[in-house]
């Protein structure tokens, strides 16, 4: 009984949500029979189950609602009072269901008020009985009905009265209701509902099947595409998969250290399978975001009535999936924001008409994927934010001085609405304006590593944009050391890393007892992690250390600060494990994780660390927020901007640079006709991008590129910035050493081709490689339509010892084939305009010339289906586009020694 009741509660809650949604739609389209039938069916199921479980109060209520809806379905006109009344009934049912969930028994209470109203309406409607057959009728098996009634009678506890229900319908009438309620057999083709709802009802149907629901027990097994699994089971599965990932990492770690190659192939496969498993398990945690939206149409409808506004809620992308955990956390902020839009955003109907706008205000809710994140937008076509009012309020609350406010753009001023206690609503309504507003929303969103931004056009509307991570379970994190311990810092909040040293361009300075870093004309407050944590010896901010240290510049919300650590190791995908409950209130850690070597480390919570800095933390310059919004993460690259010579801005992908150094001019020596500098015990050749050396400087910044034990420095005039943005090379160039030009940070910027300079630094750079890797120096054809990827990966592949030939399209590759070029390996992108990777692979496999050449697919998609398709097309392996190490490893797997062994 307990299990049954629990299942009923879950099912009823879901059904009630759907009913809510459908009723709101029905109110607008009272003639849509499909919607009505769906509602009828859901209410009917609830009623049936209640009877079965012996829940008389629920049953009676559902029954009365059903009676009224039965009348509507039979053709009675839908009166304006009808739908709100049913909504009230549904609300009452919800209340009872909630109480039932808490106590396990129906709460005491009377529903005669509602029932009387429902029945009165039903009676009133009876006079217009027409009953046009709208839906195709499939006669129900009468046995179902009999069984159902019997079961109900038998299971009913004796003390519950099963007498004539208020507003009881005759068995005939009931039977007719059954007959006319579309059974599941009517579903395909499904009624024109939103996909989400079809799916939901699909779930529900599957569940009721297993329960042996009399109404739907005749369902075939073929339609059982979903099963209900306890969340706990999924969580356990997730933990197990995480453990497997850790074990895999451990194995990879051992392999790296011992260099044993016997296991390499098997391990590679294990690695792939593990990644797939992890992805699939993560998938089970995914739920359509529509789940968090389900209640919104009802809320908006009620708000519309309350505020006397006409509001239309549009929802797009409700099937966008995200992690269940994230979904739960985003639900309340979303609801709040939609309420806000309805209350503050949209004008009153009179104002709208006066402004020449359509009477009905629109709130548009949309969700879509963008890189590894989900973007949710809440847009209204209302009056927009009132920057003047916000400005006045900000000044009144002392959030900024008049001078500061003068310097701000309206966009920046609008962001004040996310500050605590900030509400511009002139009056407090029951809906909003109580001072707990957008700051709570912002805090909640930031808690899950998201960001919220607002754009507003006066008179035309406001657009809120929330960006949240897909999942919280696995995150990329930076592993750092501090006070002899390792810690993980979520990559999401890391803005940049700055190496600091006494006397160098970046040095930690002290104002009173506070440590700060001057970074691009701004003072960054610093916190020394080991001192904060009280680890690593005597502690205290005054402790100085001779060696280099690193400042991890982190952003939390709108604030930027730096954490001083002793060293930075690498970035790793970590599986977040929750903090033990007795340590949760520490506030400085968001969880812990197990590293590849099996050790446990704490995950630093930048928000918590920042809180220890107290007030007065500088606001982040808006530039960063603007940038993070552009483009998708996948295609975003970090670029180092610098100046050199008299040309304009130049940039190079940050990933290629090993280090940035400031080298004094007098340390530069001339040797063998070229400039060199002593660097870490070896001579490092210096390359100048432009011939003329700026005179009269003591030192100049050098970008250091290291490949194994060799380093090369490119001397530049000034390092300008590090930006993260999508790189679109707009103008290609033939000039050696330049990849082309792109717009970066709003300026035309030349992109430097590092590969061009490597041979300049060492005549034998390639020869040196060649000699060392003579056996493995293999001819590799790399096909990718993106110039950026071609140029980013080709130095990498060259450095790894391959003779790389580039092709910008499948057609170009095939032309090479027809010209008789031969390769040992082919790496191809999958998504290309014209002939794509799959088609290319098929073409190559169909012809003897290149048939034996191993093909490796490169793609940003990692779905199983895509991988299967690539294998089927003839690719030997599959590597993620951004997994550079994985690519090199995979390529090594196709090295000649292995092939011979095979």
């Amino acid at each position: 009984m307990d299990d049954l009741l629990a299942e009923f509660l879950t099912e009823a809650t879901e059904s009630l949500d759907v009913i809510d949604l459908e009723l709101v739609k029905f109110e607008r389209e009272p003639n849509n029979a499909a919607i009505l039938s769906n509602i009828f069916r859901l209410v009917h199921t609830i009623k049936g189950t209640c009877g079965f479980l012996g829940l008389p109060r629920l049953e009676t209520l559902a029954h009365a609602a059903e009676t009224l809806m039965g009348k509507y379905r039979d053709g009675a006109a839908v009166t304006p009072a009808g739908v709100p009344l049913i909504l009230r009934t549904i609300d009452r049912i919800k209340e009872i269901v909630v109480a039932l969930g808490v106590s396990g028994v129906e709460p005491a209470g009377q529903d005669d008020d509602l029932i009387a109203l429902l029945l009165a309406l039903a009676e009133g409607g009876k006079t217009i009985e027409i009953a046009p057959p709208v839906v195709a009728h499939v006669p129900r098996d009468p046995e179902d009905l009999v069984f159902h009634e019997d079961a109900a009678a038998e299971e009913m506890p004796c003390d519950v009265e099963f007498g004539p229900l208020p507003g009881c319908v005759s068995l005939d009438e009931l039977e007719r209701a059954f007959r006319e309620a579309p059974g599941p057999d009517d579903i395909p083709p499904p009624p024109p509902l939103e996909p989400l709802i079809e799916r939901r009802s699909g779930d529900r149907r599957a569940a009721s099947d297993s329960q042996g629901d009399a109404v739907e027990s005749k369902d075939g097994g073929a339609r059982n595409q979903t099963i209900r699994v306890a969340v706990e089971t999924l969580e356990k599965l997730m933990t197990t998969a995480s453990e497997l990932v850790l074990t895999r990492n451990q194995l990879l770690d051992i392999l790296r250290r011992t260099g044993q190659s016997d296991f390499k192939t098997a391990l590679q496969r294990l690695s792939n399978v593990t990644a797939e498993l992890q992805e699939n398990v993560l998938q089970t945690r995914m739920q359509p975001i529509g789940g968090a939206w389900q209640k919104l149409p009802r809320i908006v409808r009620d708000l519309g009535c309350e505020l006397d506004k006409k509001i239309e809620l549009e929802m797009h992308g409700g099937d966008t999936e995200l992690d269940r955990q994230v979904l739960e956390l985003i639900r309340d902020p979303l609801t709040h924001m939609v309420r806000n839009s309805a209350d503050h955003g949209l004008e009153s109907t009179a104002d709208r008409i006066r402004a020449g706008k359509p009477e009905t205000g629109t709130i548009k809710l949309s969700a879509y994927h963008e890189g590894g994140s989900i973007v949710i937008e809440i847009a209204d076509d209302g009056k927009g934010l009132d920057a003047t009012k916000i400005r006045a309020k900000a000044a009144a609350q002392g959030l900024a001085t008049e001078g500061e406010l003068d310097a701000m753009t309206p966009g920046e001023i609008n962001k004040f609405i996310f500050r605590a206690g900030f509400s511009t609503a002139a009056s407090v309504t029951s809906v909003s304006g109580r001072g707990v507003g957008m700051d709570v929303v912002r805090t909640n969103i930031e808690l899950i590593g998201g960001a919220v931004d607002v754009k507003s056009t006066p008179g035309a509307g406001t657009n809120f944009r929330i960006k949240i991570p897909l999942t919280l379970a696995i995150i990329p994190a930076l592993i750092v050391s501090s006070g002899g311990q390792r810690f993980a810092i979520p990559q999401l909040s890391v803005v940049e890393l700055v190496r600091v040293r006494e006397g160098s361009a970046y040095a930690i300075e002290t104002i009173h007892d506070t440590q700060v870093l001057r970074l691009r004309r701004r003072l960054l407050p610093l916190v020394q992690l080991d001192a904060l944590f009280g680890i690593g010896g005597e502690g205290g901010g005054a402790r100085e250390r001779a060696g280099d240290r690193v400042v991890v510049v982190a952003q939390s919300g709108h604030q930027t600060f730096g954490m001083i650590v002793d060293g930075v190791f690498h970035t790793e995908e970590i599986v977040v494990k929750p903090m033990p409950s007795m340590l949760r209130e520490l506030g400085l850690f968001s969880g812990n994780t197990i590293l590849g070597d099996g050790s446990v480390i704490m995950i630093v919570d930048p928000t918590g660390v920042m809180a220890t800095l107290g007030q007065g933390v500088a606001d982040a310059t808006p530039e960063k927020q603007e940038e993070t919004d552009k483009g998708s993460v996948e295609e975003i690259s970090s670029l180092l901007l610098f100046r050199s010579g008299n040309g304009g801005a130049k940039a190079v992908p940050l990933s290629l640079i090993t280090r940035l150094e400031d080298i004094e001019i007098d340390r530069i020596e001339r040797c063998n006709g070229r400039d060199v500098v002593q660097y870490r015990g070896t001579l490092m050749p210096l390359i100048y991008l432009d011939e003329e050396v700026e005179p009269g400087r003591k030192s100049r910044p050098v970008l250091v590129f290291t490949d194994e034990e060799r380093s090369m420095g490119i001397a530049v005039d000034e390092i300008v910035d590090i930006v993260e943005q999508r790189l679109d090379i707009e103008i290609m160039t033939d000039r050696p050493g330049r990849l082309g030009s792109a717009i970066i940070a709003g300026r035309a910027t030349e992109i430097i081709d590092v590969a061009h300079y490597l041979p300049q630094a060492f005549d034998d750079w390639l020869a040196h490689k060649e000699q060392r890797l003579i056996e493995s120096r293999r001819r590799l054809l790399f096909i990718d339509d993106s110039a950026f990827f071609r140029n980013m990966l080709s130095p990498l592949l060259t450095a790894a010892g391959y003779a790389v030939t580039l092709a910008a399209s499948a057609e170009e590759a095939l032309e090479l084939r027809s010209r008789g070029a031969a390769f040992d390996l082919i790496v191809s992108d999958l998504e290309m305009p014209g002939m794509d990777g799959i088609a290319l692979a098929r073409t190559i496999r169909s012809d003897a010339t290149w048939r034996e050449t191993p093909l490796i697919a490169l793609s940003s998609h990692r779905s199983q289906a895509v991988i299967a398709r690539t294998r089927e097309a003839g690719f030997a392996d599959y590597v993620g586009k951004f997994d550079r190490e994985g690519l090199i490893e995979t390529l090594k797997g196709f090295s000649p020694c292995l092939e011979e062994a095979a």
Partner: protein
Amino acid sequence: MSTARDGRIGATEFVTAMVGRQMFGFAIDRVRDVFVPEGVTPVPLAPTEIAGLINLRGRIVTLIDLHARLGIETVAGRRNAMAVGIDHRGESFGLLIDHVGQVVKVEPNEWERAPANLDPRWAAICLGVRRTSDRLMLAFDIDRMLDERLPSRAA
């Protein structure tokens, strides 16, 4: 569940362990395993009773230092050499002990109430006392100890 608030003890088999000079008994149905903690990660700013976290076959285990928790003196060289693994409300804990003893069978009528003048920290975790010829064994109230909120060292 072996613990009862009125002092009556349901379980009959106990794993004994030494912490300092005191012998404790852990109801055997609550003990998941006994292990040697290795690679302990200290948690900065955690209460002193929390010795740190370890990875025990993929599970994160919180180690509790009973010396610190109960103010037990260290007997030379043996401190916290092993841990008794306990599951409590879905989380894993390791209670650090100096060394593990054996499994003893105790009849319910052998238990006596904790003396009234016992240190309150001890009284809170003591289900009962059993006298043997040479020493006293304290039955450990695991749930009570783990449910108690510890004061944080963080300012």
